[in-house]
């Protein structure tokens, strides 16, 4: 549980719009529909989905809650199969040698090499277990604030895609410009002035 660990990293979001009704039910349905599959797909390189905060490896939203006080709390899990290049290289060398022996030729054509590579990747992908990465999500629905406990670009992109798919609400990443647009009480003329600012020129 990264959220409760001593040190954490996070990126922040503002959630645009609200559900028309029953937010808790809508969130529950979105989480269940887009939960990470319980069984790992043998051939998919990457799979991603929601899992309960308290049960990252057994994604059961019937058994584990996603409601903590006034917050929604759950986790994004991204499982990725990663095949080391050296392993591919080794298997390729073995398969190419086999091909040469079988054909009685000294050379293997380009086409044959790409076929061998495809076959080697298929076999390795099938054998290789996925490595799971879990990123906790804390969502204050009332204030439209959300913390995602990672700053990794790829994880942020997965999160944004799957969030929209699950809840049809748009997460807007908080950085200087969006903070002004979503969290400030500046009037429109003040915002216009901010938008015309140029980098601080502190040199004399």
């Amino acid at each position: 549980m990264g959220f409760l660990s001593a040190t954490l990293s996070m990126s922040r979001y503002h959630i645009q719009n609200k559900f028309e009704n029953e937010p808790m039910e809508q969130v529950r349905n979105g989480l269940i529909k887009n939960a990470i599959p319980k069984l790992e797909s043998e051939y998919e390189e990457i799979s991603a989905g929601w899992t309960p905060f308290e049960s990252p490896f057994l994604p059961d939203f019937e058994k584990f809650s996603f409601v903590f006080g006034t917050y929604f709390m759950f986790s994004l899990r991204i499982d990725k199969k990663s095949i080391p290049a050296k392993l591919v290289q080794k298997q390729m060398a073995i398969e190419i040698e086999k091909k040469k022996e079988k054909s009685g030729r000294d050379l293997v054509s380009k086409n044959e090499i790409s076929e061998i590579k495809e076959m080697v990747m298929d076999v390795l992908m099938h054998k290789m277990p996925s490595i799971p990465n879990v990123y906790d999500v804390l969502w204050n629905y009332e204030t439209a604030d959300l913390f995602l406990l990672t700053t990794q670009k790829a994880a942020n992109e997965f999160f944004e895609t799957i969030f929209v798919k699950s809840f049809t609400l748009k997460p807007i990443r908080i950085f200087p410009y969006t903070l002004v647009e979503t969290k400030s009480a500046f009037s429109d003329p003040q915002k216009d002035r901010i938008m015309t600012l140029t980098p601080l020129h502190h040199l004399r």
Partner: protein
Amino acid sequence: MLDIATAYNKYGFLGNDFLTWLWFLIETDQNITQIIEYKDPVTLEIGNSLVLENTLGDKSKEKITIKGDQAGLEEGTTALKKGAKVTEINLVCRLGQEEEYTFTIKGESFNITGLKTPAAGKDGSADEIEGMVLEKALLLFRITRVIDTLFLQYLEQRISDDWKNNGLQQMRKWIYND
């Protein structure tokens, strides 16, 4: 609202300018509590790292990284005199008498890394998890509120009529050690 990617690139400088201003506030012992109108005393200190960047004439970048618990920041002020801005800073923030937070914030993205909050409960039993989550959530919202308020205060000063004659002059005085 502008397209997000465009806005990120166009206004990333606001975050770096803000961090540079924060360093100025800290070094000149300004009253942070008063600036953000917080109910309890708020203090900020530079932690163990500071990163500055300077865009050079040919659009290449010069990066100055200062790291270490007792590191001197003289190279940083020298870089400021050449036009560099703070792009990343490690801060120690104390809220009230007991709460201490340390974290690194990036100007361009406002990403927060290495955040240490006051401990949120120690029990760890299943029944206590909800309590720990709620306590930790409160701490995270508290520190992000301080950061947001400081940033918005900075912008308020930047767009005020006396920024050039007052705020900017004070920063220059600090940079040039007048």
